[in-house]
């Protein structure tokens, strides 16, 4: 493949510019950067084509050479190309310098270790100082533009790495004093000076003769990176925004220049300011921003240095210059602007904000500047737009809005008008044209325009934006809000299609306008017949404004409208209103309407929906209904609205699986009553309502258990124990698996599995009720004992005793079941085991370490359980 021609390059560049990311991802992307550098040296391409290649490297270096190493290599190649240019005039030298600078600075390659930086910096400084660089740098005629370009390149490098030129301040001052090009040198010096001051102040170091530093780096000599390194890798704000700059001021105060240094600094600044007239207006503005913030707070630098420039600047129509004056105002305040000066500045600003010779964007910017004016003595809170004190009513009135203004100008001026109205709330009542009355007329005019049939959306938006602005500023003034409310209602009457704007407005304004507006709009809608062309808009509004007030009128409207809701969209809109009413707690009449809709609507989806709402209304209590109908995350009116709403309902009406906030434990045994009863203790971590505990016995050993219900449980508030009657089918221990169903405070119904509850063997123990009170207890026991055999089983075992002895063991575990006791050595125990078994124990002749136990039962399967139980007693203490 031969080298790409001019046309192929044009095509390639075109494709790249159309979408750089797509191009770089494509097959040609990888080679573009490399090809571009090679082609710059091709003799076949014209200079014009090469300039367009360089333009690409000026704009997209990060895409062409994505890392520092590639950028370094590219910059080296660009510098090589520059050196290799023949000594005749060439259009490539400037763009090559610009490109090498851009690639180094944007590619993070600029630094003391970069070979390209070490080549570029002395070269630029040499060019900037007008030094003869010998052949290769073109004819003498090109030197002057190259000198300016070199200054610009240095300025950009200094911007990206502040302090880079810290060593060159003296040189730059000399050059400016001699014959160098004024503008590039002024701007470069101002920036380098500012950066040096800031860096030195941050390091809490003095100026150390920075301003009179003798020679700049000698050609070929090493570049001094010290100040740049001191400044860190970060760029410095050249014109910091005001609030941010407040902190920096204290920083500069630590610089304590010696009287001589202060004099030098003053001389440098004066030198720059004196020749500032020679700079283009935009460059003058840059100089003023740089110097203004550089000197702010610096000892020995009176802001009065700027004074000679101010009158000249105040007279101009140039936006950048007036803006720079405002920046000086913000930087120095009273130190540079007396109250009279401030008043003059405000007058010029007011004048500029409406001067017929200036364009609209300038007017708007000046209006903004007026409302954010840096006053000497601000009264209001910082950062909030306000009319400056010295603006006065006369100046202010010249800036009032009229319907003839452009929308943005109208809003800006309207804001000012609102601020004026807010100020003289008490004054001027009853006079001919108070600002309030004018405001009212203006809003009426805007509404009239919004009412224009077929008018553009922008007119409607403007009307509502103006209304919103007024409400925000004048929410406490009924004189303004009442006519506004009625005006808006009239606008709705005339053009219901603006319903989305009304809904949006209601969403954003506070109750001052919101509540009365809701009321009048509801009234407006429900007083109409239900078969309006604008029915969909009425329903949209009603879905927003319907509430518990006068529900019968609303329901009447809906009943009438239902007959005309012939398509799905309208039916859904109608049902949305029903939903709003349900949320508002309307019940009476609504159930009838929903039932009627469930029969009457054409669309099955609508009918289903109405039925669902009816069921919800009929079955759910108020709060739960509110939650169920709460805002759903799903976008409404997609496919079936049932599907859409399901997400909301599903969350509320279906049972959610959740980790249980409930802890269940078995309390002390209660050996009484006809059957065994488990005492359960419940604790909760969060409020739980309508708790239902469901139990299931593993292995069908017991009859199914009833659920236990608790209406309300709160954390830290103990509830009385829950009693769970057990109905064993066999006298055996088991485990109960437990599930909990409950409602959360948010109204959700949750389901949780709790850890199983063990039912131990001893939990089944019951005493024999028919044991006689006195008398023949021994006989009763013997009778039981004998009856166990021959059907049952008998056993003997050794029950170990703890240190407390037999008496303690019996009283702790077996007390309710003792029939005959001869403390401390002998006890006869009879235990009833439901459903119909018995366990009899003779504990006799206890010794120090244990007691021999004889046991009989009428159910052989009980024996091992009893054995385990008795052996475990001493372990449980």
């Amino acid at each position, binding site marked *: 493949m031969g080298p790409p021609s001019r046309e192929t390059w044009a095509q390639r560049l075109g494709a790249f510019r159309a979408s750089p990311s797509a191009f770089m991802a494509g097959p040609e992307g990888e080679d573009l950067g490399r090809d571009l550098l090679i082609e710059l040296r091709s003799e076949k391409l014209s200079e014009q084509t090469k300039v367009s290649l360089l333009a690409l490297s000026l*704009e997209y270096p990060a895409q062409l050479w994505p890392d520092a190493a590639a950028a370094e290599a590219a910059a080296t190649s660009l510098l090589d190309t520059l050196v290799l240019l023949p000594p005749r005039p060439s259009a490539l030298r400037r763009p090559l310098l*610009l490109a090498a600078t851009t690639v180094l600075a944007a590619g993070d390659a600029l630094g003391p270790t970069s070979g390209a930086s070490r080549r570029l910096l002395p070269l630029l400084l040499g060019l900037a100082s007008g030094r003869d660089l010998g052949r290769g740098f073109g004819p003498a005629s090109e030197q002057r533009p190259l000198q300016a370009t070199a200054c610009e390149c240095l300025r950009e490098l200094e911007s990206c790495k502040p302090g880079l030129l810290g060593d060159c301040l003296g040189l730059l001052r000399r050059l400016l004093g001699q014959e160098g090009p004024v503008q590039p040198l002024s701007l470069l010096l101002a920036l380098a000076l500012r950066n040096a001051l800031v860096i030195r102040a941050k390091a809490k170091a003095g100026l150390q003769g920075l301003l009179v530093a003798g020679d700049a780096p000698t050609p070929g000599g090493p570049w001094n990176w010290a100040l740049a390194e001191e400044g860190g890798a970060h760029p410095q704000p050249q014109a910091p925004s005001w*609030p941010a700059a407040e902190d920096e001021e204290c920083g500069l105060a630590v610089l304590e220049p010696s009287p001589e240094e202060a004099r030098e600094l003053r001389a440098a600044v004066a030198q720059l300011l004196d020749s500032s007239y020679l700079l283009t207006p935009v460059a003058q503005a840059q100089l003023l921003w740089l110097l203004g913030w550089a000197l702010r707070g610096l000892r020995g630098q009176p802001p009065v240095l700027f004074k000679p420039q101010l009158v000249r600047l105040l007279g101009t129509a140039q936006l950048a*210059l007036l803006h720079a004056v405002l920046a000086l105002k913000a930087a120095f305040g009273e130190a540079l602007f007396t109250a009279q000066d401030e008043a003059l500045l405000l007058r010029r600003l007011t*004048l500029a904000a409406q001067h017929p010779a200036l364009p609209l964007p300038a007017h708007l910017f000046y209006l*903004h500047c007026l409302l954010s004016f840096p006053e000497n003595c601000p009264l209001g809170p910082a950062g909030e737009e306000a009319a400056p004190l010295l603006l006065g009513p006369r100046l202010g009135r010249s800036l009032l809005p009229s319907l003839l203004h452009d929308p*943005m100008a109208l809003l800006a001026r309207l804001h000012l008008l609102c601020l004026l109205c807010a100020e003289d709330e008490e004054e001027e009542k009853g006079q001919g044209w108070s600002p309030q009355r004018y405001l009212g007329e203006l809003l009426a005019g805007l509404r009239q325009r919004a009412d224009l049939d077929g008018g553009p959306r922008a007119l409607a938006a403007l009307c509502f*934006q103006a209304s919103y602005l007024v409400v925000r500023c004048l929410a406490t003034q009924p004189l303004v809000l009442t006519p506004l409310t009625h005006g808006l209602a009239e606008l709705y009457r005339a053009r219901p299609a603006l319903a989305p704007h009304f809904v949006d407005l209601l969403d954003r304004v506070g109750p001052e306008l919101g509540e009365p507006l809701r009321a009048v709009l509801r009234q407006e809608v429900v007083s109409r017949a239900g078969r309006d062309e604008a029915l969909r808009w009425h329903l949209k509004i009603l879905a927003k404004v319907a509430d518990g007030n006068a529900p019968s009128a609303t329901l009447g409207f809906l009943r009438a409208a239902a007959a005309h809701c012939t398509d799905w969209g309208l039916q859904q809109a109608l049902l949305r209103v029903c939903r709003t009413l349900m949320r508002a707690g309307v019940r009476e009449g609504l159930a009838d309407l929903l039932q009627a809709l469930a029969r009457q609507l054409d669309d099955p989806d609508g009918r289903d929906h109405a039925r669902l709402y009816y069921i919800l209304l009929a079955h759910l209590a108020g709060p739960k209904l509110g939650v169920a109908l709460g805002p759903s995350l799903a976008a409404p009116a997609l496919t079936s609205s049932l599907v859409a709403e399901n997400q909301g309902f599903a969350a509320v009406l279906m049972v959610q699986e959740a980790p249980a906030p409930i802890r269940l434990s078995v309390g002390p045994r209660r050996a009484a009553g006809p059957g065994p009863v488990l005492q359960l203790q419940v604790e909760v971590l969060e409020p739980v309502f309508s708790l239902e505990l469901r139990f299931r016995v593993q292995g069908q050993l017991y009859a199914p258990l009833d659920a236990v219900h608790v209406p309300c449980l709160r954390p830290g508030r103990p509830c009385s124990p829950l009693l769970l009657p057990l109905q064993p089918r066999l006298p055996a221990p088991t485990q109960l698996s437990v599930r909990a169903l409950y409602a959360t405070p948010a109204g959700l119904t949750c389901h949780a599995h709790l850890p199983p509850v063990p039912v131990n063997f001893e939990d089944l123990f019951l005493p024999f009720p028919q044991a006689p009170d006195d008398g023949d207890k021994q006989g009763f026991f013997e009778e039981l004992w004998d009856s166990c055999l021959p059907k049952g089983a008998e056993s003997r075992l050794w029950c170990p005793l703890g240190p407390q002895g037999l008496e303690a063991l019996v009283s702790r575990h077996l007390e309710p079941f003792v029939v005959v006791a001869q403390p401390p050595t002998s006890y006869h125990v009879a235990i009833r085991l439901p459903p119909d078994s018995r366990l009899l124990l003779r504990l006799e002749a206890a010794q120090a370490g244990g007691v021999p136990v004889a046991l009989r039962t009428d159910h052989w399967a009980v024996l091992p359980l009893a054995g385990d139980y008795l052996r475990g007693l001493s372990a449980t203490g």
Partner: protein
Amino acid sequence: MAQRAVWLISHEPGTPLCGTVRFSRRYPTVEKRARVFNGTSYVPIPEDGPFLKALLFELRLLDDNKDFVESRDSCSHINKTSVYGLVIGGGELWPVVAFLKNNMIYACVPLVEQTLSPHPPLISISGISQSFELLFGIQDFLFLGQKNDTELNTKLNQLPDLFLQACPFGTLLDANLQNSLDSINFASVPHPQKQPAWRVGTYKGKPQVSISITEKVKSMQYDKQDIADTWQVVGAVTCKCDLEGNMPNVTISLSLPTNGSPLQDILVHPCVTSLDSAILTSSSIDTMDDSAFSGPYKFPFTPPLESFNLCYYTSQVPVPPILGFYQMKEEEIQVKITVNLKLHESVKNNFEFCEAHIPFYNRGPITHVECKVSFGQLEVFREKSLLVWIIGQKFPKSMEISLSGTVTFGAKSQEKQPFDEICIGGTAYLKLHFRILDYTLTGCYADQHSVQVFASGKPKISTHRKLISSDYYIWNSKAPAPVTYGSLLL
């Protein structure tokens, strides 16, 4: 103070994208600084395609803006300046300085040297005014003196080279792009010491100074008891100084005749070196003292090479040049109109042209016109629903002329008929268009002998004056009309 990117977009309604990016320029070194300064609030400069789409949406320039879209039409989405936030790729690109003029959208994004959330006030961002200067500069370069599309395309093609010159790294060096173009051409001329950066090159040839004063007169006339008529003169003084030397000094004095109206609200070109404080404080809004300064108004300056606007001013003359009334009454499908115009006796009765345009908005097409004029002739432009009363070069001796008659309209159809957001119902206006040469309403003139030039050779000095009408409205006095607060303070 730097710009991150600049765009020039032609607005093309009716095409699929509704616009084309005609020029764009990005500044990667500035972008790098933006990333550091903006921190987590940094949003990169998008590619042209997404930017075009987002900007046109925000400016309401897409064709499909019929429906309510919250992000654009919400009442809380209030824009009071030409600075926008564009939602692109999930982030908000802010501040985008943009405006539409002559079907061209000018846009750029200035560097903000701090975090963007919350947005700092615009007044505290140095790059904002630089953005405006850049965009105004491009606009002037493209459209001043531009005659046709070919010329526009030529100029658009020059922009990449001009940006290398005027804004090589995103920091604007000169908003006057024509100047930059000249400096490319003048590059080989050795520059002497202390030459203004805005005066590139030198002039060689016969010295001459040309001064022209153009006054535009605006008016709103209501013919109502409770609403005051308003009128205002806006003047512009344009100079072209062809003088040899590096920094020739010129002083031009504007003078008023004894009964002339004082000049107010004076804005001067930045090349003016000093200003009398009386000039600075003479204001139409709030005169500082009762004795209005009536000149002479001296402007010392070093002229740029090209033609420039030395100053602008406004003035409040005692009476409007033409006073009139317009009465329009609607009677079903026709309207009855009566117009009366009277030229003030002090005004030079020698027009280049003088016409009264009577438009009818928000109505059906004109089907029949039956009108009588006391002077001049009436033309009917049915397709524009417009009557044009051609008054000609002179008012008659009586200085008063009138028109009366009826205009009948057909049924209103949605399309084609002129739409206007102000002229609703009976609200209607007539607009006067006229021009008088060698005349100013204030009487302001530049005396040839008072022009001082400190340069080699005695220059030839020429002066010109003219008065033009601009926004000269006479509202239907039989219906409500839009008013400014000023006209309510009788």
